[in-house]
């Protein structure tokens, strides 16, 4: 098996391939100690978070006035995780979403590191399934302590008390106490060993399509994103980087820029120039006024055509193929198709930005990031300060897409270390505008052995479980995988794996030097599913079968995925005449949902439930906007 060292392919598939991609950014799993109960680091964290009267764990804060604050382990970048995480906590705590305030978590691997990704990392669609159990239990721990405090005061059996809307009630004696009144007493109680979790049939919030908790601020402009951070006395920097990767700054004439009112400084970095201004307008005008000479480096003559040709060449010569064919080759016609996927630029709506204030004894950072703890480590290295002297305030992200999981702080930091003691905001990188990273180009080719063309059933013969090698772990274009291999190559392809006895992927190594590639929204599935599903469509067409019926036949042994497919087919009215007409010329570009994309996979009980919680959201989005 050609799997990354130390990680079996089976493990990769079981985790949907998702867990692996992110392990590089995280700390060790030993540090990822997210827990529903109090931990050593909790006292300091609660103290820094307004010193609430009751803070039984890293997630629940109850103030003496009855205010309920919930600390979100994962970051919000549009995926509604603040709503989902709040639902998990509130369900077991016994409050409604209209009673809670959600907060960004501080960087702290010990308190918020998720074992599934090995750190305090938001990505890979893991947030709900990675925290489903722990957040419910965290809510239950808090509720148990609050109920115990009330029962002790009333001298009744805790089991005779009920909780609703942040109030503990004892019906027999008609007594009630709010969480705020109980917080002080609850804080004195020892941690309960075991807590009772609700039965799914008793859920009031989980499974309900509740409105988002973060909508009001985003509708009236009051939500603070990273770019909205304002620190007294701060300056604004904007950066122009060498237009080719590997190129460096040769010289820069900054006389005109420095003459512009409001321009504070011009900073030279190895492969970029930054202009610092009193406000963005000055910095921008200053940047425009620079005369820059670059030494473009060896990639300056590289063209897209060359990249494409190299990929195609590698594919033709089987150089890029890692996935092995083992087991019996299925009988029948070999169907082949090549799909050509371009390099795509990431562009979050919010320009990438970081605000940093470096002092002699402290570095303070304001940034919307998917990897807050990693940012702290990077900042500590840049500044030479200890990690506990780095304070990071996470912010709402104006889109994530994996782009906020990188190390842009490095670039900002390198410049800002020189900028000195004023807080400064590093702005847009002019090379990639919003991002210097692109999704890797991909020329995957599907090979499937099939039955005879006229055969009634699916063309694909299912190989024996565990014997086929569906995992084409192609050489990395991302430059981040272990031994140059990336699980992104298989991600999503495992979904219909009975249908994929041999999957092959082409990739060319040299592209790595020429472009800075990274994650794309949806990570692997955005290209892998396109290829996979398109190919299944082609097979269905050859078999003269309805594409949904064709998939149904493949999914006989996968009832949950089949149920998702059936539900999607039902909701779009598949097979009942024409699909609903697009409501406007732009809706779906006149190309209605051609086949439902099945994103569903889960094995363990908890993950299965967790997936249910977010499938609705995704399905809704997919069905409504395609």
């Amino acid at each position, binding site marked *: 098996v050609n799997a990354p060292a130390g990680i079996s392919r089976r493990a990769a598939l079981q985790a949907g391939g998702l867990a692996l991609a992110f392990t590089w950014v995280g700390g060790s799993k030993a540090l990822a100690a997210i827990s529903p109960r109090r931990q050593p680091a909790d006292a300091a964290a609660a103290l820094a978070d307004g010193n609430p009267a009751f803070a039984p764990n890293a997630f629940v804060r109850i103030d003496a006035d009855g205010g309920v604050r919930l600390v979100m382990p994962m970051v*919000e970048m*549009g*995926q*509604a995780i603040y*709503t989902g995480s709040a639902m998990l906590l509130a369900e077991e705590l016994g409050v409604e*979403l*209209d009673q809670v305030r959600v907060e960004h978590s501080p960087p702290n691997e010990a308190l918020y590191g998720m074992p599934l990704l090995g750190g305090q990392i938001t990505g890979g669609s893991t947030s709900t399934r990675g925290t489903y159990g722990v957040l419910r239990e965290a809510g239950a721990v808090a509720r148990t302590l609050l109920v115990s405090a009330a029962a002790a005061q009333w001298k009744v059996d805790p089991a005779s008390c009920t909780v609703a809307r942040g109030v503990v009630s004892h019906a027999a004696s008609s007594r009630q106490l709010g969480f705020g009144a109980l917080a002080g007493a609850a804080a004195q109680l020892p941690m309960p060993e075991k807590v009772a979790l609700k039965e799914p049939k008793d859920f009031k919030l989980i499974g*309900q*399509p*509740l*409105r*988002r*908790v*973060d*909508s*009001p601020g*985003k*509708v*009236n*402009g*009051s*939500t*603070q*994103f990273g*770019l*909205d951070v*304002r620190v007294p006395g701060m300056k*604004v920097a904007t950066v122009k980087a060498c237009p080719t990767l590997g190129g460096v700054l040769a010289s820069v004439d900054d006389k005109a820029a420095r003459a512009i*009112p409001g321009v504070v400084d011009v900073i030279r970095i190895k492969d970029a120039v930054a202009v610092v201004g009193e*406000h*963005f*307008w000055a910095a*921008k005008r200053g940047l425009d006024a620079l005369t820059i000479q670059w030494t473009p480096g060896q990639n300056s003559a590289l063209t897209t055509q060359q990249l494409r040709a190299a990929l195609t060449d590698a594919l033709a010569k089987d150089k890029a193929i890692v996935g092995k064919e083992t087991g019996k080759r299925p009988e029948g016609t070999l169907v082949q198709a090549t799909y050509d996927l371009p390099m795509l630029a990431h*562009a*979050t*709506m*919010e*320009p990438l930005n970081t605000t940093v204030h470096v002092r002699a004894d402290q570095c303070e950072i304001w940034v919307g990031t998917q990897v807050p703890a990693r940012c702290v480590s990077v900042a500590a290295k840049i500044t030479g300060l200890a990690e506990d002297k780095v304070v990071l305030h996470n912010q*709402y*992200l*104006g*889109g*994530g*897409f994996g782009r906020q999981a990188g190390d842009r702080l490095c670039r900002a930091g390198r410049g800002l270390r020189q900028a000195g003691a004023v807080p400064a905001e590093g702005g*847009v990188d002019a090379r990639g*505008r919003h991002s210097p990273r692109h999704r890797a180009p991909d020329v995957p080719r599907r090979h499937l052995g099939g039955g005879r063309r006229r055969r009634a059933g699916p063309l694909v013969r299912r190989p024996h479980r565990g014997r086929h090698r569906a995992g084409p772990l192609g050489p990395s274009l991302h430059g981040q995988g272990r031994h140059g291999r990336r699980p992104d190559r298989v991600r999503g392809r495992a979904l219909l794996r009975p249908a994929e006895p041999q999957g092959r992927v082409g990739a060319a190594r040299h592209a790595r030097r020429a472009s800075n590639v990274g994650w794309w929204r949806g990570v692997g599935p955005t290209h892998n599913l396109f290829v996979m599903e398109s190919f299944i469509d082609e097979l269905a067409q050859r078999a003269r079968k309805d594409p949904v019926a064709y998939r149904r036949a493949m999914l006989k042994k996968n009832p949950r995925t089949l149920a998702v497919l059936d539900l*999607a087919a039902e*909701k779009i009215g598949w097979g009942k005449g024409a699909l*609903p007409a697009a*409501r*406007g*010329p*732009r*809706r779906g570009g006149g190309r209605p949902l051609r086949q439902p994309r099945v994103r569903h996979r889960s094995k363990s009980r908890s993950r299965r439930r967790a997936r249910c919680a977010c499938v*609705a959201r995704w*399905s*809704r989005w997919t*069905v*409504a*906007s395609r």
Partner: protein
Amino acid sequence: MITSTSTSVRCRQRPRRHALLWALRDVVGLTGTKFGCGIAQCGACTVHLDGQPVRSCVLPVGSVGKRAVTTIEAISQTPAGQRIQQAWLEVDVVQCGYCQSGQVMSAAALIQRTPNPSDADIDMAMSGNVCRCCTYSRIRAAIKQAATGKPEVLQSVVTMPARSAS
């Protein structure tokens, strides 16, 4: 003169070419109006100039003159803005939310001048506002709901009535 929220701000000390967006964000301190692209391609910076939607990232302060600038912070003070914001909450439009200030401003201007917009009107008015989360179908539904007052039925697998979270 920039009128925003309920306050008026004199902005005469700025160079006349200074784009309105950064005068609002960096000088006045109103950060609800977003910087997305800086070249009038994404719509995140949309504000109203005497009720008309404009891209503030390319609008020089000097050209504002005595016209009233209304930003997302004050749009709830107009009936159209109020209806749009309410519909936005009811339809649960937002995802990451970064573009939504601009979406709300463009939508409010639309129903102000076209009280019952058709799909074509919505396309025309909203096509300059980019949403990377692709909330477009909900934006359309919310605009219609704000215009007609009738709840829009979204094509959705969810049949349970939504409850307000806040």
